[in-house]
């Protein structure tokens, strides 16, 4: 079990993604990286940045960074802890979270919309990670 949004959690999440055959198939042509950003507030003292590099059906890297200028990813998704938790437990659909502006995405939305199945599987993979929540 790992605390949510830590490097340890990220390592387990990377394993979960790379074990997800449905993700691998759905994302076989995907090339693109993300910052998942958890805003400070609630149990989060400082904004946290997790870098995720996804390429051709596999996750190449997940890294918790302290300096956000380290990477310039193609996409960022930003939300407070409570929203990330609801997405990670599949209580909240990530698309719904964006429609209601509980989460914010930057980047080419049309590209994401070509890989809806892959995005769905990324969320499914989060449920495979034994997680210690922060609240």
């Amino acid at each position, binding site marked *: 079990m790992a605390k949510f949004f830590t490097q340890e959690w990220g390592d387990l999440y990377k394993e979960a993604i790379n074990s997800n055959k449905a993700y691998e*198939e759905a994302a076989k042509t995907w090339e693109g990286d993300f910052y998942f950003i958890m805003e400070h507030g609630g149990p989060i003292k400082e904004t946290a940045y997790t870098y995720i590099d996804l390429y051709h059906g596999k996750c190449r890297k997940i890294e918790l960074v302290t300096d956000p200028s380290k990477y310039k990813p193609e996409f960022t998704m930003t939300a407070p802890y409570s929203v990330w938790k609801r997405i990670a437990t599949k209580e909240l659909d990530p698309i719904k979270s*964006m*429609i209601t502006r509980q989460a*914010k995405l930057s980047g080419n939305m*049309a590209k994401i*919309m070509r890989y*809806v199945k892959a995005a769905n599987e990324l969320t499914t993979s989060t449920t495979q990670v034994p997680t210690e929540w922060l609240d």
Partner: protein
Amino acid sequence: MWTFSCPFIAYGDNALEYIAQIQGKKAFIVTDKNIVKLGLAKLVTDQLDAINIKWQIFDEVEPEPSLGTVKKGGLAVGKFQPDWVIGIGGGSCMDAAKAIIILLVRPDLEPDCIIASDTYNFRAKARLMAIPTTSGTGAEATWAIVLTDTKENRKLGLGTTECMPDVAILDPVMVTGMPPLITADTGMDVLTHAIEGYVSTWGTSITDGPGIVATRKAFEYLPKAYKNGGDLEARKEMQNAAILGGMSFGNSMAGLGHSTGHALGAIFHLPHGRTVGLFLPYTMEYLINGAEDTTAKYAEIARYCRIASASSDKECAKALVAKIRSLAKEIGQPLSVKDCGIDNAKYEEAIPGLIDRALNEVMTMTVTRVPGEEDLGKIFRYAYEGKNIDF
């Protein structure tokens, strides 16, 4: 948290006269050449002239509005700087208007970067009005913007809740001239929106109401509007059904009929309503065969529409499917993909692309029985032959 929005609606006889009440100096009209040729745009500009609102027409929207056309519209609206953007036409024109009004305040933005979570604040400059000339896509009451990537032959579901029109005007004078084929195509879109909105897993009792009422009205009035375009009562009720359908699915989510229909339309360039209506019964059968909750909802629709009253939900749901096919036949709609005149060899060749597109629609993810590649392939093939879904 979920949300519901809809426009201010002026409807019924002489609804276009509502325009006399708007405040503004300049209106940018987004439409297509056919709407201008038919004189429908003039009905609107006459109203604008009466209140001294200057206007400009951008009539380059094509049946499946492309990113390129929207960019052109963005340049034109930027030069004109209106305080109203008015989409007149079918869903294509209204969706293009929704994208173009964003480009008015964000001329730097590529249309395919319109993001649901972003806030554009275009109302600091202009308001959005939608005047449908079909019944219809319901786009006058949705915030979605469906554009086409012409390079990849793929529909893109974009939009933000800000893009809900401020005003929708449903004047029967805008639809009475619709020829039977367009009446039928767009009418099947209404039915599909209404049913899929009602059974959507993202639906609630707020979206159920418009969906189920729209369904009943569509069954009753679509055949009448098809057979007699001058039947004003039928035209008005179909306009109402269209906007109710939009309110239902637009505030929940469309379903498998849309994701499969979108795929077919994108690759084979068929009218949207025709394709989603074609796939509706097949995708319903797929859900009936594996999703009790959805079967129960179909049964509710069947009972409310007085199509069936059996105690078995499955029997009622199947009766609903049969009724949809019967309606489609009555109004000259294709019952199979083969009926659309698509060559079998070309269709088989397109199957991987059809599956990929349908698989990657949000609408596929939000049904109660989510098909994978194999099942989607079977659905596409069964629909080609006109074979009832038995898996």
